[in-house]
């Protein structure tokens, strides 16, 4: 009996590995032209809310941005607006050329967002 249990324990990882299946394809959500359109749209939607959340907290006074930080966020906001415009062009007309432009714009947004400064800490 003990031998059987030990065998089961040893084989468990193999059994689990055998259960692995291919990652399910996410169904296309309503309104998107295709999977790429959806993916780019999701990323931009999140980036926009990240910006507006910082913006609203700054307006409420719960987060104080220095002039440098504010400039960085506003530069990010300008780039975000441009990327959204390019994305919407692709969304309405999903051609290969528009796709390249949209991917480049969204990748640029991700890079800029990752490089945003943290607000300066008052010491």
């Amino acid at each position, binding site marked *: 009996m003990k031998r059987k249990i030990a065998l089961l324990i040893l084989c468990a990882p193999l059994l689990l590995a055998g259960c692995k299946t291919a990652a399910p394809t996410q169904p296309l959500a309503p309104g998107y032209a295709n999977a790429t359109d959806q993916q780019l749209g999701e990323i931009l939607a999140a980036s*926009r809310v990240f910006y507006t959340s910082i913006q609203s907290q*700054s307006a409420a006074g*719960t987060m104080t941005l220095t002039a440098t930080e504010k400039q960085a966020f506003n530069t990010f906001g300008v780039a975000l607006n441009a990327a959204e415009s390019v994305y919407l062009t692709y969304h309405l007309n999903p051609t290969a050329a528009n796709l390249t432009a949209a*991917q*480049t714009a969204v990748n640029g947004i*991700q890079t800029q967002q990752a490089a945003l400064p*943290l607000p300066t*800490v008052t010491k």
Partner: protein
Amino acid sequence: MSTTPTPAPATGFWAELKLLLPAIEMAGNIAVTLLVPGGVGLAPLLTGLENAVNPLLQSIGTQESVSSEILNVYATIIGVLTTLAQTPGLPAATLAEITGYITAAQNATAAYIQAQSGFNPANYLPVTPIA
């Protein structure tokens, strides 16, 4: 799908995050140097978390499915900042700044998930400058 593989360096974000360390050290009497026996290794902790996040950021746009990577990035940022926020004796201003970023990352995560339910043109309205 695969987007154009353009790695997204996170040096700016993390470089600024590390600027928080002196304030945290002063406020919480936390040793950030390995030279202090028994001191809490906050610096190694941050280094570890940074190493965990950077590959995720750099993987964006290079994987067939980036959904999990995007969510992992926001979740990890939330985790890192939440850990920092729980540091004893943090100055109120420091805590406010950290909390602000946590809130923004949480809201971004929610927006990302919400966008998965369908296209909403309101998600792409132009933003206004921060006054």
